[in-house]
């Protein structure tokens, strides 16, 4: 049996029980999780592929707290693959992924779940759950709770007596959708939906946010709002890994920019250096808008 999609492809077969255990955060501690020291996430010398095809080879990328690292590069070079490794979706074929210095995949399922829950990920598509905006944004908090509380919350939301927790309200505020908590996601525009998706990852206050072309389908207004939200997250000490096909966006929001081509990360440096004085020829070509391969 081979599991075909990312969500099930980890070997965490036994992780369903331990939510009630040490890792359970209650509503009160949700908002002050910021006080915990944040850890760096790092892919070190990772090699990864699908089937026999190798997509990444010996790639290293680290994202420190409060740092925005943008990944640019043409389609198909493996930006998404690298981000999925950083978000602990998949185990690298070779190399390590480290969170706070610890090799995450050397750990057991329960510990890996703890690490995984310090990471948030937003995709190109909003991928919202068919429910209210509140339920979507609260989802990450819910799964971190014990079952009795989850059931209680389900009933509350069915009975319409659900209240917006401070963390959820804060996350919605960050994307300018304070008043949207009760809306059904079906009634949102594409831009609003993507902003909710961002709030959803923000709500449980992760160490690092992994964003895979989050604005590629958005109009400039919504793009600007999301970029602002990224800056706010950065100010709060959250590390951000951002893949984008829009190098101007990288220039606008990133502290560091890496160019990923078929051979791996060709160059990674301070944003200004990359855009004004790149050391690699292909970087220069790419920045100029040439087709590089």
């Amino acid at each position: 049996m081979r599991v075909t999609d990312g969500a099930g492809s980890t070997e965490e077969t036994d992780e369903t029980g331990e939510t009630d255990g040490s890792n359970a955060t209650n509503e009160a501690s949700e908002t002050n999780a910021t006080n915990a020291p944040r850890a760096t996430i790092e892919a070190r010398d990772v090699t990864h592929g699908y089937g026999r095809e190798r997509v990444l080879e010996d790639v290293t990328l680290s994202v420190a707290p409060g740092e925005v690292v943008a990944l640019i590069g043409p389609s198909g070079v493996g930006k998404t693959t690298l981000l999925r490794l950083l978000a602990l979706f998949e185990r690298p074929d070779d190399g390590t992924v480290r969170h706070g210095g610890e090799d995450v995949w050397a750990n057991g399922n329960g510990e890996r779940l703890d690490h995984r829950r310090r990471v948030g990920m937003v995709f190109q598509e909003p991928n919202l759950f068919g429910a209210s905006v509140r339920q979507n944004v609260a989802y990450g908090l819910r799964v971190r709770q014990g079952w009795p509380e989850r059931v209680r919350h389900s009933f509350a939301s069915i009975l319409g007596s659900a209240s917006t927790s401070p963390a959820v309200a804060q996350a919605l505020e960050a994307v300018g959708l304070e008043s949207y908590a009760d809306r059904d996601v079906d009634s949102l525009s594409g831009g609003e939906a993507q902003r909710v998706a961002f709030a959803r990852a923000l709500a449980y206050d992760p160490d690092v946010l992994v964003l895979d072309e989050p604005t590629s389908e958005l109009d400039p207004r919504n793009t600007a709002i999301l970029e602002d939200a990224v800056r706010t997250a950065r100010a709060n000490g959250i590390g951000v890994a951002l893949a984008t096909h829009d190098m101007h966006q990288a220039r606008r929001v990133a502290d560091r920019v890496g160019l990923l081509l078929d051979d791996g990360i060709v160059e990674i440096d301070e944003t200004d250096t990359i855009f004004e004085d790149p050391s690699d020829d292909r970087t220069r070509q790419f920045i100029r808008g040439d087709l590089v391969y």
Partner: protein
Amino acid sequence: MSELPLEVLSIPAVAFPFEWPYVRSIIEVSLYVSTAAVLVSTLLSLPIALALGFTSFRGKGLLTSIITTGMGFPSVVVGLVVLFGVSNQGPLGSLELAFTPEAMILSQIVLAMPVITGVSLAAVSSVDDGVRDAAFAMGGTRLDVAIVTIREARYGIATAVLAGFGRAISEVGGVLIVGGNIVVSGESYTRTLTTAIQLEARQGRYETAMILGGVLVALVLLVNALVLRLGDGGGGRYR
């Protein structure tokens, strides 16, 4: 020169020929048996559908077409097989289930399961991988991802449950054989609406058969409306 058809197709002028307790008990047995069977089938079917929907392995295609074939499994044959199983001589003989509502439930589980599994498999498979990924990304466990998948597919799963319920409550061959169409002291023990209709039709009492048929159809409609209302409240998701 039977005078039935036109009279019945218009509003039946026939006085309702049954005692209410009799009809009520038949409805109760029908509902009890079908609902119980559908509940058990759903509980068994959903994990299978989830497992089949999101793993790939050799022989998966074969398994899927066996399920499809099972949807068209003849109820008479199912009834016979179940009867063998529960009869005094059969492997479950010691449970004394022959001609009991519980035996009928068993036979209807066999009939409803392929339908529920097959239709929910389609529903579950069509849940966007992105939404499952999102649940995982938010820190969900495998169980959480499964729950999200079920919630996203709830409309399709409701349809599956309804299709299974429809197959169960409208089926006559199986329940007749394993249940025996028994009435005790004027109240139904294993008589369902379908076996009652068949009994009336056998005796040429087409008007009363049609009246019971109307009750059955009304019941199916009611359950459909109820389940669809529950399963609704978010047919499609913003993509």
